[in-house]
């Protein structure tokens, strides 16, 4: 019998009443995913979740790129917690995986060194006059979707099954490094066998691809992407993953980190332009979805409201395999049906 390592560790995930913190990267590249998550929480699961107008960056990208010091990030985090406290919540849910790592680290440091917590309280008080409580439950939104995956399945119109063959779709799951590598106990299944995305895929009819570089970083590298001349590091790491997964012929990739989703989508375009190479058989690339998009598609949400048209690797062939109904004419329409010009086509990657 296969030993299920992830079963050895499960984390506590609150049942209701969440304070949602938006992600700079997810808002930028996948705003429809955050909309879908809130819709799933409210309309499918009937949960109370607050979308706070006064929230802001956690500064995590600046912290890991060394232009924001620890004490500043720590106090900015404290301000975000003060917004949660002010709104009457104790369960904190950051959309970004970098933020999730930052919050996990700050909570751990405060737990290890109460003097540091007191110093942060003093900094925040001096700067803003604010007070805060530490959250009683810190989870990533993908943890919540994982927890309620069977309930959601009841509402789903589609499964992760190829309607032409009847076989499960082969899905690569990529879990963001800062979800469980910094503090393994913060991740479902810990860092070596994270089950947060695999659990969704299996529950919803798909088959998880176990490939050699499954746990390798997407290559974000913080300063290595922010600095244009360093981006070779980033694309090289994604390329290593694509080469490793290619023989398994995955139907799509799903990520819980917005940065990973963006890089694995855009680097396929870059590699195709540079080397006339794609990692699927037909030259269209491997679609890369956020977990919100995956859940939303199966729940029957409009793919053009989820935002699949703003991915560089397009998803129509994947939707056709699943049997998802969509209106091709709506793809390049804006709000209120306004007809928009179509994007230019890449020179090699098929659209």
């Amino acid at each position, binding site marked *: 019998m296969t030993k299920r390592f992830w079963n050895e560790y499960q984390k506590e995930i609150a049942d209701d009443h969440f304070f949602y913190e*938006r992600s*700079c*990267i997810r*808002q930028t590249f996948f705003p*429809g995913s*955050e*909309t879908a998550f809130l819709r799933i929480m409210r309309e499918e699961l009937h949960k109370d979740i607050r979308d*706070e*107008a*006064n*929230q*802001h*960056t956690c*500064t995590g990208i*600046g912290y*890991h*790129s*060394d*232009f*924001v*010091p*620890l*004490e*500043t990030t720590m*106090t900015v985090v404290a*301000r975000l917690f003060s917004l949660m406290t002010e709104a009457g919540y104790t369960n904190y849910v950051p959309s970004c995986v970098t933020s999730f790592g930052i919050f996990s680290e700050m909570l751990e*440091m405060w737990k290890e060194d109460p003097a*540091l917590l007191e110093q942060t309280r003093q*900094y925040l008080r*001096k*700067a803003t006059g604010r007070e805060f409580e530490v959250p009683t439950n810190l989870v990533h939104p993908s943890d919540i979707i994982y927890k309620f995956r069977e309930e959601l399945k009841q509402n789903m119109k589609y499964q992760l099954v190829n309607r032409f063959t009847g076989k499960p779709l082969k899905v690569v799951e990529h879990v963001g490094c800062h979800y*469980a*590598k*910094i503090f393994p106990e913060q991740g479902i299944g810990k860092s070596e066998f994270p089950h947060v995305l695999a659990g969704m895929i299996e529950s919803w009819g798909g088959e998880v691809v176990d490939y050699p570089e499954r746990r390798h*970083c997407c*290559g974000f*590298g913080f300063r*290595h992407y*922010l*600095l244009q001349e*360093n981006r070779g*590091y980033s*694309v090289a*790491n994604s390329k290593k993953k694509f080469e490793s997964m290619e023989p398994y012929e995955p139907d799509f990739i799903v990520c819980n980190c917005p940065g990973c989703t963006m890089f694995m989508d*855009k680097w396929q*375009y870059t590699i195709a332009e540079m080397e006339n190479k794609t990692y699927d058989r037909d030259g269209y690339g491997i679609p890369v979805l956020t977990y919100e998009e995956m859940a939303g598609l199966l729940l029957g949400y409009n793919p053009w*409201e*989820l*935002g699949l048209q*703003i*991915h*560089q690797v397009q998803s129509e062939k994947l939707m056709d395999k699943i049997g998802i109904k969509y209106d091709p004419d709506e793809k390049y329409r*804006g*709000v209120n049906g*306004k007809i*928009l*010009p179509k*994007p*230019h086509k*890449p020179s090699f990657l098929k659209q």
Partner: protein
Amino acid sequence: MGNLYNLLSQDSRFNGALKACMNCGICTAICPAAEFFDYDPRRICDTVQRKDENAIEELMRSEVIWACGQCLSCKARCPRGNAPGEIILILRKYAQQLGYFNEHIKEQQRRMAAVQGNNILQTGYCVHPDLVTPEMHPEQGPIWEWYVENIIDIAPKLGANYHGEGPGALREIHQKNLEEIRKIYEVTGGMDLHHLLLED
């Protein structure tokens, strides 16, 4: 003797990041940066724990410490619970404070402070579609270019509140929030570092 090591060890992250490295090299084996650059996290740990001041200073003045991509895979895999990626953050912090970085790294840090650093202070976002210009980001591809050119029509369809008031993705962050962020920077040393990096 011992000044630099003592300085590094004063950082609140130090004790958690470096306990007793046994030089097994697992961190280097799985490190994405070690595959791409001439970078070896095992040697970072070894250099610091040996307390050799000259070697630590040489390391802090080198470009080696700027190779780490901060994935923290090293922390997850170290059998001794060390975190070479966290040691890197401490080395970089003091390298910046002591002015140890060379002109190349200094220019890179200045550029990030000028772009993303200023963006945080002026908009409240680390990253925002207005910042990811197609001219500076050709790797984003033609669909990104199409999106940013038509964002006013597309963003609302995705449920975003682009530059709008109230909650929602890409909302305009109110000045009262930005003012509190700026005050936090001033109280905690963030503004000092920001200005240090922006110096010519």
